[in-house]
């Protein structure tokens, strides 16, 4: 018999297609796991990072494929915007994985409405640790990243921008 824990464990081994080792549970995009034990039915609710994120469909089909390997009769993956995903949903481990991958993690903030002033605050360079850094552009190679420049090690780096 499949339990909630089995499903969460399986989900925690599914990674973001763009950042290896960053699991979808650490990213905080699994909003809810509903399991009807008797019917053998699981409904997984995914709250996407950005509405237009092209990885969402891929992640959803990966979830479906993986959970079908468990003894379940029915697996459904649904998109929800409730609760809306914010960068505060990233776990401590997710932040560490991002840093190791060369992407500066977003600063935590109070509530669900991030203040734009966060963009003016120093972001720690993931390469040399310096905070003498400056925002180059709030848009980057993917929707969730901004580009900063480090004045100490003199190179550009990516920042997982707060939303």
């Amino acid at each position, binding site marked *: 018999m499949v339990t909630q824990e089995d499903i969460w464990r399986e989900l925690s081994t599914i990674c973001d297609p763009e950042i290896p080792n960053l699991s979808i549970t650490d990213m905080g995009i699994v909003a809810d796991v509903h399991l009807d034990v008797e019917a053998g039915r699981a409904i997984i609710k995914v709250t996407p990072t*950005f*509405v237009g994120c*092209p990885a969402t469909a891929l992640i959803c089909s990966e979830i479906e494929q993986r959970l079908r390997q468990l003894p379940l009769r029915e697996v459904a993956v649904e998109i929800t*915007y*409730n609760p809306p995903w914010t960068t505060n949903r990233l776990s401590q481990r997710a932040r560490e994985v991002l840093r190791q991958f060369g992407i500066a993690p977003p600063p935590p903030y109070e509530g669900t409405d991030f203040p734009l002033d966060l963009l003016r605050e120093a972001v720690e360079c993931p390469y040399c640790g310096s905070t003498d850094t400056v925002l180059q552009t709030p848009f980057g190679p993917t929707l969730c990243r901004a580009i900063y420049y480090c004045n100490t090690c003199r190179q550009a780096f990516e920042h997982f921008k707060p939303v």
Partner: protein
Amino acid sequence: MRPGSGIVPAVKDLLYRMADDALILGHRHSEWTGLGPVLEEDIAFSSIAQDKIGHAYALYQLLHELGEPEPDRIAFFRDAPQFRCCHLVEYPNGGYDFSLMRHFLYDVAEQCRYHLLESSRYEPLAQLARKVRGEIKYHVFHATQWVLHLGARGTEESHQRMQQALEQVFPLALGIFEPTEYDDLLAAASIFPGERPLQDRWLETIVPLIEQATLRLPALEAVVPAYGGRCGIHTEYLQPLLDEMGEVIRSEPEAEW
């Protein structure tokens, strides 16, 4: 909201207006991909385009849940008279001055609209509104920075070109708020307060920013708003754009991607 209730056509009309604006402007923004004046701006317009098309998709998905066809069908198989976008989003990109000013006036309006929708009684739209808040914040941030920079801190030429762009875009932007036959119904049902209150809020937001950019907003009474889009009357630019957007999918509608 019960299917079949009298409010459904009003909600659908609101969703079509919002989604068609986002889809068409998203497509226009994407035309800067590879052509932006500097790499960062190329990426900015491309990213904003991707967000807008994502918002359009989410809104078409809500329409689908209300009984309309699948998002791809809605997006790529209608012709101009069935679209409900405003003229502002249809115009070709022109110069960067025009594109930036359109981006600024549109995104402030969109931010105000979604803000009002956060407390909508139509819960799926309220949830989407709370979701896109953070994304649109970046769009408005980008547009505002450039309008202030080129208006107040650039050169005489940049100031003059932003002023010209403002005069050209302002009447088009007023077309966002074209009144519709559903405004009263939506307001009475606490779904959306209406285009007029939205326009008021938009003006309150842009006036101080335009002043700060040392630009002059044309007098409201001296301007003829570009209405028509919300009832399916469009500029000559929309149909060729739709033909281009749908060219591949229409050539093989049953193809699997």
